[in-house]
């Protein structure tokens, strides 16, 4: 691992179409000690993922407008960037309806900030960055 990355914070990509919720999620990610990138939809997220190699977690809402929802985005991430961890969130009640991709974690909205912070931190430490 290079010297520059030793000091760089791990990066989390936040994908959320609702600006207020995105703002809150970015704060949460930064408070947890990460660098945050933000995207308002899945297409934007894919563009960011294509030009960044330092993202260790994608934290995405499921219900979003555009050509892809959060589930399709998660599937694309799993397919194209297998090492990246995935966290999904939704206001839908039934978690069983949500097909969480392998290794992904689901949080029901409104989510518990401390529990989400702990999950982010364990993912970052477990991923070897």
């Amino acid at each position: 691992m290079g010297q520059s990355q030793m000091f760089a914070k791990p990066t989390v990509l936040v994908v959320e179409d609702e600006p207020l919720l995105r703002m809150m999620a970015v704060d949460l990610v930064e408070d947890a000690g990460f660098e945050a990138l933000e995207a308002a939809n899945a297409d934007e997220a894919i563009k960011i993922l294509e030009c960044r190699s330092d993202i260790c977690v994608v934290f995405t809402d499921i219900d979003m407008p555009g050509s892809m929802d959060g589930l399709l985005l998660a599937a694309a991430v799993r397919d194209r960037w297998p090492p990246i961890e995935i966290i999904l969130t939704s206001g839908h009640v039934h978690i069983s309806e949500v097909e969480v991709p392998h290794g992904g974690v689901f949080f029901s909205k409104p989510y518990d900030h401390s529990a989400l912070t702990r999950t982010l931190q364990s993912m970052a430490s477990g991923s070897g960055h």
Partner: protein
Amino acid sequence: MTSERDDTRRLEALALYEIMDTPPEPEFDDIVLLASEICQTPVSLVSLVETERQWFKARIGFEQCETPIGQSVCAHSLTSSDLLVIPDLSADVRTRDNRLVTHDPFIRFYAGAPLISPEGVAIGTLCVIDKVARPDGLNDTQRRSLAALARQVVVLLEMRRISSRKDDLFRRQKRISSEVRAIAASSIAAQEAGGIGTFDIDVASGRMKISAEGCRIFHLPIQDEYPANVIYDFILPQDRHLPSADRTRMDGTASLETEYRIHTPQGAIRWISRRASFHRDAEGRAMRMVGTLKDVTEERNAHARMQALIRLGDVLRDTDDVQQAAFDAAELMAEALGATRAGFGMVDPVAETVLMHRDWRAPGVATLEGLHHFRDYGSFIEDLRRGETVLIGDVTTDPRTRDQFQTLLDIGIRVLVNVPVFDKGQFNLVVFVHSNEPRQWSDAELDFIRSVGDRLQSAIGRLLAEMDQDILNRELSHRLKNTLSIVQAIATQTLRAVQNRGPIESFEKRLQALSSAHDVLIHRNWTGASIKDLVSDTLDRIGMLERADVSGPAIFIGPKATQSVMLLLHELATNAVKYGSLSNETGKVAVKWDISGPADNPQLSFSWQEAGGPPVTEPTQRGFGSRLIRMGLLGTGDVDIRYDAPGIMIVMRASLSHLQEAG
């Protein structure tokens, strides 16, 4: 009873007939068979009454060939020319002490028509007897038939006398023959009103005498005699073991009562009921097989329709799938009506097309799956649009289809039933039943189809409304949870500068408790929640469920109480984790509830007992959480809190009816 003079005249009349103690004769046997069939009784007798005994010229369902006069119910019939009907022999003063009533065979119902000679003398009766009382007696048809058959007995007696005394014949011939014709005609009319045919098979030759009605039942040209096996060709292969055959008639093992199906020359299927008895010679060999025939198709169909309606009720109650309900209803209709194809299709009312789904079909009938244009088959879509059930008994003659009947015949539709189903005022589903043989609908069948249609329409309406409600609930839930998330985001942004994070975290967790209450409610379509679910959910959310002892009866509370109770439980659990028995590694909490108080105003009492935590003291400061706890289950108080060993104990009470209020 009868007078002595009457007795004398009766005995003289009987003597002239020279009938007493003669062997059985088929003509009389047929009459008791018919009487018991028409009146639906196990017993029928031609009873002739002397001074000391009654003797039976013909009998069915009765062992003895005579009884002492003291046991004769018939003797009571002789004083009147009318029918004597005794609905309950055990309740009638004339018969309640009769030995046949008080002892085996315990007869209960009696109806007798007097046998009145041309001279006006009652010599006996044609009677029917049952072993169960019949409060309603006989119906009009049965009464008239019994009287007609009684007159026929007298005619037979007269004919016997005439043939035995040739010199009388000439003198009486004219009067008698006209009387015979009249009475025979009325008797045949009585038989035919009941649709009952008679037959008489000579076992040795296999020749069968059969009545005109019997021929009609088998759709045979009317003639007096046929080979007994003529009916074989009509009987459905799967029923061919049921009727008698040469062998079973010879050895007398043919079943005496059976029902089987025949094909008519038009291809329809009819159910035939046949009852018979054997006449045996002195050695017990079967000589003749005599019996009655009845077409019971209508009865069987009525029964099938009733069963179909009952099954439909079950099917529609149990299903939550519109297409399954439509298919099941179509199949039940087809079976009950003996149709050849049934199913349903989704309608596009603008394009006037129907997309047929999988259909039920009789063997050899082709499917209609796929897209069809209504106008290719006639104009009946206009009736369907108005919500009317379309019933076409013959597509070649009905004005709605006769111009395109060949198109329909090509796909095996001679009979067409369409039931429209509407969703939100839009014609969008049609249930159909087809048959390839024309038919005349009976009123009962039309009622049946309309009844199935009505039930199906209301059941599907209910299903669609439930589906709409379900979709709406999910959407509302989703939006509400997003709103709660935004409230959470606003609060965290607004309070970002505040250094003390404790209150902000408490707020966030209370918001989640509210959201969880919402989850529990949405699972139950906003009807309420069980206390056990709320307690378990709260403890599970903080990972403490295995350290809790949760017990109480299954009690549901209303949606409003659910939200306040959920917040309350959240505070109790949070306090326990912060300061109480769940703050260490070993403490426990017991959560219990029960119902007490008067039956007309039951109270729920709810207790939260902690144990094994650090020593407890009453808090000096009252935060939001402890204020919420002191407000109790419904915000109306009635809360006891004790800060003793082994841990905090909180008991709350509230009226169960208030907790269960919907609002």
